[in-house]
């Protein structure tokens, strides 16, 4: 009798979880996007930022060639990150014999995309006005907000990762000279560490 009800409760919890959260999101996708971000940042640093004086200027002017390179690096990095995230997540979903494209994953994507696209567009507008010093800070803040918003629909750990990103973003805004370093920490290092933690936990 008691066992039957214990089983019931267990099943209720499991169904509630499975019906509201997209559980196939892979920890490896966190690791790969983190590494790709570090590579992209290195490229951007070597090509564009090395010549800027971060300590003095807050609104660094950027010429058309560098702007082109910066956008090119951003697009390639973003494309590779999204591609690798989709790849690892699809692999995991197949292994768990779950669907990749269902109500839960759609909900996850929509809620991730709203703050992320808002921040992305805002950063593009700022970029074209020449405020490149703000970009690392703002991308961190909006990415953090997006993760917190999405965490309701996948692993709850994403919420803490989001908080870290926001804090780093705010620090980067105050200390613009170090914002590239903080960006590397947030999008690269912490992302990789979190990916590994989640990968281990949800294996």
């Amino acid at each position: 009798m008691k066992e039957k009800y214990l089983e019931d409760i267990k099943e209720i919890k499991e169904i509630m979880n499975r019906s509201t959260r997209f559980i196939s999101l892979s920890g490896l996708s966190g690791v790969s996007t983190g590494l790709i971000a570090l590579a992209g940042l290195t490229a951007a640093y070597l090509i564009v930022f090395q010549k800027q004086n971060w300590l003095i200027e807050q609104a660094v002017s950027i010429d058309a060639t560098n702007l082109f390179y910066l956008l090119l690096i951003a697009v390639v990095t973003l494309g590779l990150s999204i591609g690798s995230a989709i790849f690892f997540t699809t692999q995991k979903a197949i292994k768990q014999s779950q669907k990749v494209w269902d109500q839960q994953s759609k909900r996850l994507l929509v809620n991730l995309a709203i703050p992320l696209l808002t921040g992305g567009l805002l950063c593009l507008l700022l970029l074209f006005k020449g405020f490149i010093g703000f970009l690392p800070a703002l991308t961190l803040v909006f990415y953090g907000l997006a993760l917190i918003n999405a965490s309701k629909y996948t692993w709850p750990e994403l919420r803490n990762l989001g908080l870290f990103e926001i804090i780093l973003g705010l620090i980067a805004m105050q200390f613009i000279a170090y914002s590239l370093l903080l960006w590397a920490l947030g999008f690269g290092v912490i992302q990789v560490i979190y990916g590994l933690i989640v990968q281990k936990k949800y294996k």
Partner: protein
Amino acid sequence: MKEVLKDLDKAFENRIRLGIMSALVVNDYIDYTSLKELLDVTDGNLASHLKSLEKCGYVSYEKAFVDRKPNTNYTATEKGKEAFIKHIKAIEQLLQ
């Protein structure tokens, strides 16, 4: 003990019905196909349990068309949510 047993809802004795309600109380609505995949049950099975929950007034549905295909969305009614919460509380008390 007797008081607690009275709160246990006969409608949720069945695993599939319990599963349907668990999913519906945490989601605004779920369509038929997603529900079927979530619970891993056959059409006939799911339909008959949904019907019995409808009869109790615990579940309501809305038929719509998505890309010209029929699509039915199921929702837990207020009455259904209350009954479900009461049922879970009764189980928790029993387990204590």
